[in-house]
């Protein structure tokens, strides 16, 4: 009986270590935040577009999200993780042929333009969210942040922080392919 009491710390610790290992190997990202908007329609917005792209009259609005599976990426030229994330967005758009829309969050249009000219432009079109209003509607935590929007214009996934190559391959692409098939 006395011996068992002395074993207790070890047993408790091993249980704890098991949890730690499980948490570590689950691949779950603690930074992943649930969005209150999951499975709800994406907020309405109507923003001036950075360049006259193929969407209507140099504007980007929430209407353009319907009908096709779209990835919306909030970025800014002043944000360092956005630079880290950028090659992944380029791959998503160019190799995986995903429809990616950019929203430049609290950024000067000339800075955003320079940013995209320097690193490459993965976006079909880019909205200018100068005062961050659209960001607030989406419940933005910070940039970069990425939303997956289905054909009916509903938010299906939210990624806070940069999209990593692993995240793209393991989670994002399977989800996007499934949404495209449905």
């Amino acid at each position, binding site marked *: 009986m*006395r*011996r068992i009491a*002395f*074993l207790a*710390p*070890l047993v408790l*610790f*091993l249980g*704890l*270590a098991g*949890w*730690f*290992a*499980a*948490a*570590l190997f*689950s691949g*779950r*990202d*603690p*930074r992943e*935040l*649930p969005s209150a908007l999951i499975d709800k329609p994406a907020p309405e917005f109507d923003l001036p577009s950075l360049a006259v792209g193929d969407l209507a009259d140099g504007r980007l609005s929430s209407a353009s999200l319907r009908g096709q599976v779209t990835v919306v990426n909030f970025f800014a030229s*002043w*944000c*360092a993780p956005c630079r880290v994330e950028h090659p992944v967005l380029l791959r998503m758009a160019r190799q995986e042929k995903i429809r990616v829309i950019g929203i430049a969050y609290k950024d000067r249009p000339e800075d955003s333009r320079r940013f995209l000219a320097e690193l490459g432009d993965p976006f079909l079109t880019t909205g200018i969210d100068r005062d961050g209003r659209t960001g607030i509607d989406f419940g933005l935590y910070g940039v970069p942040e990425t939303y997956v929007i289905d054909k009916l214009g509903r938010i299906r996934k939210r990624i806070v922080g940069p999209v990593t190559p692993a995240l793209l391959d393991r989670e994002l692409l399977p989800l996007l392919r499934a949404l495209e098939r449905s």
Partner: protein
Amino acid sequence: MFIELGHFALALALCLALVQSIVPLAGAARRLSGWMAVGRSAALGQFAMVALSFAALTHAYVTSDFSVSNVVENSHSAKPMLYKISGVWGNHEGSMLLWVLILSLCGAAVASFGGNLPRELRARVLAVQGMVATGFLLFILATSNPFTRVIPAPADGHGLNPVLQDPGLAFHPPFLYLGYVGSSVAFAFAVAALIEGRVDAAWARWVRPWALVSWCALTVGIALGSWWAYYTLGWGGWWFWDPVENASLLPWLSGTALIHSAIVVERRDTMKSWTILLALLTFGLALVGTFLVRSGVLSSVHAFAVDPARGVFILGLLIIAIGGSFTLYAWRAPALQGGGLFAPISREGALVLNNLLLATATGTVLLGTLYPLFMDAFGLKISVGPPFYNRTFLPLMTPLLVAMAVGPLLAWKRGDLTAALQRLWVAFGFALLVVLVGLYLSGFHAVLAILGLGLAAWIAAGVLAEWGERIRLFRAPLRDSWRRAAGLPRAAYGMSLAHFGMAVLVAGVSASAFEQERIEALRPGDHIDIAGYTLTLREVRRVPGPNYVADEAVIEVKRGGTVIDEMHPQRRTFTVQRQTTALTAIRTGLSADLYLALGEGDAQVGWIVRAWHKPIVSWIWLGALVMALGGVVSLTDRRWRVGVAARKPAALPAAAE
């Protein structure tokens, strides 16, 4: 060149640590004095090598050597020198190097000042320290090497995270790590004692100063961190129950229990296996904290860059260190013979109560910290915040604080509670007075906070009553009392100071219920009225800094119609990182702080100005410093002096009761 030298020195340190963990241990088992002596030289050599390695990295930072990727990522040529140096430990790799530097410093200290230890014990302690060092050196070399080069070297670096460019934070990590790593010495002593199967009063006398050093450093480190959060984050808070803060609080709580229970081992030769467990636990919690902060398992505002490989490695270290020592504990601790018996009402009994409450509090904070992790496994996102800790931690602390005044007045073996309480009637009266006056002045609001103030008064008066009792104040002639006061051991003064510091801290914490807050958008000429002060925004001007530009508000402070001060809160935009930080303006005083933070805005809409009036908030950090000072005073006690224990074990001065 220096960088490669540093890298090489680190690898050499690993080899020495390996030697240090094997040879002295084998020597102690076979009683070969030559083998045991290897521990000492290996520990000193390991320290020299790690110090060289640390110096090499510091040199790269000071000279802005951008061919080192660690320097590129965390420094910038336009940064002030202080932050170039503090940049060394402002990142994951460098901070691990500082960790190991302090670890090897502790090993070198045991090797140098441990001359009075029995040879076997010293050899085993050094061996255990060598094992811990081996683990961490391997960790650095395998996953977190700060000495990688980038070729070609970029023209300039990315700069240190602006939030970290602050004097408070420059010195916070060294203290915190000294606290964490210092607990490895007590851990090593505990493991060595388990191997030997012997714990006696002498062991406790050797281990307690080390535990005290680590406890003092941790106290200062936590206080600095909390003070930093208070004046830089601009939210006016000073403790957020954030996982990283909790990670430092956990070893502090169990370390506090340890320095108290070690007294019982030293004086009464009992509570041995419990004290050993606390020594193992304290270091274990320091390791768990490191794991949580650096593995990315928990998210936190303070967390270092997330890297799963590091997480796996630290988890491995954790399992070997804690799992191994707990296995040893389960195997050897039951054989430890308990010593003296004691009645529940006695000094020992009070210390047992202290330990029970502190251990429960440790468990509570650990549960609160890990609960989100457990829930995450079920796909539930929750965060455990202040309400949880207010309901669990505070009820545990209250009896601890009440008993704090009584415990020191109880005699060893069998105490007289009635007599102790009779000596405390003045303290009780004082506390009651504080509560009644407080209730009257506040109009019966914030009853809990006023009870907290009463508790602080109870402890403070209790400390003075106990001191008065010891020197027989007012009962013996004053000259006699003076002679007694001068003759009291330093350890007694240390305890009184530390307990008094706790009273000061409790008062500061309780008074936070009386703070006032105003948030308003001000245009030049507008004012805020708060707690009798009138704060008028005169202008907002642009001020250039070395590596930032700042908007600085000029705010005139009036009290009773006369201008008493001008305060300048800033919002700094760091040019390299495009990040803004708030530089708060604080008028600190013993009676209250006036705290201003400048938010966003412009001349048309106005600037968001947040103002707080916080009564005696500075007492929180003052109290923590007094507590740490108490620890230092206790360390200067004659009992711990080098050599005393070895030369005259029989003639140890027993502290006067």
